[in-house]
């Protein structure tokens, strides 16, 4: 569950990488959606872009270089329909939620709060796509 003593920069870089992957993935998912779901995907894509910019600034403020986004991301499964796009969007939000959970483990209190609040936004979007809530967003379900 815990990420141990990961540094603030490492946790921020992980969150940035997850946001970059989500931005790429939403581009794929959006192409298979229509109506209100397409609008939601566009809105969330914009949100992830804004989050990426915020994280980039935070990493730079700590004196580190933000990791560049990859040109291409291997998707977890093929997306050929609206149902697949919806599943991908939920998958992406789960990934970003997990990444922000890493920030909650750092010692900096401001970053902990930032990560926890970001998790809530991601979990809400994941619940939207999944149609159900989860007991432990970002965590491996307890056995």
């Amino acid at each position: 569950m815990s990420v141990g003593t990961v540094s603030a920069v490492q946790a921020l870089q992980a969150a940035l990488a997850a946001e970059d992957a989500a931005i790429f993935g939403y581009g794929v998912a959006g192409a298979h959606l229509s109506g209100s779901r397409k609008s939601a995907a566009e809105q969330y894509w914009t949100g992830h872009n804004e989050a990426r910019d915020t994280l980039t600034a935070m990493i730079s403020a700590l004196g580190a270089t933000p990791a560049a986004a990859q040109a291409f991301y291997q998707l977890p499964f093929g997306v050929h329909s609206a149902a697949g796009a919806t599943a991908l969007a939920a998958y992406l939000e789960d990934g970003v939620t997990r990444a922000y959970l890493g920030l909650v483990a750092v010692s900096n209190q401001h970053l902990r709060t930032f990560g926890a609040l970001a998790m809530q936004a991601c979990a809400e979007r994941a619940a939207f796509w999944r149609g159900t809530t989860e007991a432990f967003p970002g965590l491996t379900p307890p056995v």
Partner: protein
Amino acid sequence: MLAASAAALPVLLATAGCRSSEVFAGPDPLAGRPSPAPDVITLQSVIGAEHAMIALYQAAVDRHLRAGDPERLLEVLLAQHRQHLAQLQARLVVPPGSAASASAAASGSPSAAASGSPSAAASGSAGAGGAVSGRVTIARLRAAEQASAAGLVRQLATMPPALAQLLASIAASDATHAVALGG
């Protein structure tokens, strides 16, 4: 024999002109049980608040048993709160026989109300034993979820990393509950 020896220790130490804390390098064994650490107190408070939330949901489920769709959602959310409680309780380790352990073991722990937990306050104060006062509505549940999500985030500062992550995850779950309830 052992008990008698332990009882005689303070007398022997006094006779020798020293306190027990001067004999032992660690915590004074005669000073009674140590106070719970801040994270333990916070965890007890969160557990109490989760008890209160469960009582609130249980009252809502009982009231809406024949109400059609809403109670299905409430049952799902109630089940997830019970999962929260189980995970929180699994992380609470207190010395057996202490006041803290008695409080933690009590169903409907009053610790949240005692500590002024925001989530317990917002939930409408389900007290010890799960009694819920006042009318339970969807709006009240939604407000309780929102207050819980915000309150848990405020309590992250003093928690060890793994426990902070659990609280943050529960806060995120509560935030999704609030949205599911129309928030």
